[in-house]
């Protein structure tokens, strides 16, 4: 996997897992809203979630989830895509816009610092907090040997 591809996967994942309101705030905070046109969507559809028997065996179809997708184009031919779980047209449109902007070096540096990195950090903290909440329920079962002699 190329570095560009893995970086894009990282920011697209961060944008998808983010709270939509965060993206709106970041968009409103841009010094100048860039010109863009919506090429596709936002439209909601279904993705069939797959799994594997025993997690490693044969694949099977578990059930569907709603997903909203959107594609936007910036003036210079750069396209941004978004695929977001749920019925989230605004979230998908903004995520597609940030995906496009992140492909332009002078934007990506700033948006990386002001949006993507904070999102990744918050995600890490969210996961750690959730893990901490359940950690006290960790249990040590022990067995008692009851012998006659």
């Amino acid at each position: 996997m190329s570095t560009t591809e893995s970086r894009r996967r990282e920011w697209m994942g961060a944008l998808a897992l983010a709270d939509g309101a965060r993206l709106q705030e970041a968009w409103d905070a841009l010094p100048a809203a860039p010109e863009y046109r919506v090429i596709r969507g936002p439209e909601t559809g279904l993705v069939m979630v797959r799994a594997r028997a025993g997690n490693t065996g044969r694949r099977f179809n578990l059930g569907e989830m709603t997903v909203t997708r959107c594609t936007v184009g910036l003036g210079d031919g750069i396209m941004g895509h978004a695929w977001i779980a749920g019925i989230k047209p605004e979230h998908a449109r903004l995520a597609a816009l940030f995906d496009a902007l992140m492909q332009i070096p002078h934007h990506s540096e700033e948006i990386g610092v002001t949006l993507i990195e904070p999102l990744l950090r918050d995600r890490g903290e969210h996961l750690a907090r959730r893990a901490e909440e359940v950690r006290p329920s960790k249990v040590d079962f022990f067995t008692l040997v009851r012998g006659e002699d």
Partner: protein
Amino acid sequence: MYVAVKGGEKAIAEAHALLARERRGDPAVPELSLDQIREQLSLSVDRVMSEGSLYDEDCAALAVKQARGDLVEAAFLLRAYRTTLPRFGYSLPADTSRMHVRRRISATFKDVPGGQLLGPTFDYTHRLLDWSLAGQSESDLPRDAEQEFPDPAPMPRVLDVLGREGIIEAEDRGDDPEPADLTRQPLDLPAARDVRLQNLARADEGFLLAMGYSSQRGFGTTHPFVGEIRMGEVEIEFAPEELGFPVTIGEITLTECETVNQFVGSGDARFTRGYGLTFGQGERKAMSMALVDRALRAPELGEEKKGPAQDAEFVLYHSDNVEASGFVQHLKLPHYVDFQSELVLVRGLRRAMREEESGHDS
């Protein structure tokens, strides 16, 4: 021949208006919001997503509200809604070994690597009504003081530990065939394991529970140990055509149950597996599914069929509560003409018998 029944539009509209009023209940009581349902009746939401076979917490909360809390009706609403949406494609297989685990227990090993995490469970509660929940006072739940915890320990899969020793059968993926999809192709027998697992994943929990229970009680041969149950969030990846690589599109809650079952062979004796996986927090369903999955493997493991849970036709054709409810409930719709024809027939038979009898008497 089907004879249509017409009329009743006004009465139907009035009935629906009554339904809306009943749904709202006493207007002096505040109306439920979807947020309240999603957050505070989350296991209802999870069950509706599982049996509706559609993961969307907001839609499921709306369905629960619209159905007045009737969860089978709510699942039906989700099934109907999904037919209005286009299918974008298939996700990469959800990897439960990368789950952000909130509950994880094993009944086979007490010292599992990563430990046993009880998480939010009804287990070990006394099942006494908690009157403190009857008021509106419980805003401050007791919580531990700020504690620092080390990074979460990795949680290797319990069955992998047995797998390394070779004493449990391996999950064979063969040449990893494209799985069948029951939303696209009707159920056909014999059904391969991918079809069975999809069917069970969307099956009615009560049905699966009863089937699993029957297999434990002797109508089948399952005698399982719960190798592992884990519940938590899994990130779902999808590879859009225009990108050519997979991206995370969101995370969903899943509950997984793996059972360790009766062994086969002697010198090369090996335990066998049952697998259950369901949307949301649904341990009872995941466990029942694992029991039934294992029971349905009877033919491939050369076991004698002794109960309904081992009968694929019986289980798979009766597991879906939307189909079952539709066929049972259609009986209450007008069958006036059908019944008239039966009535004429039965009256005719009785008349013929009477005439015959009076003929003998005379």
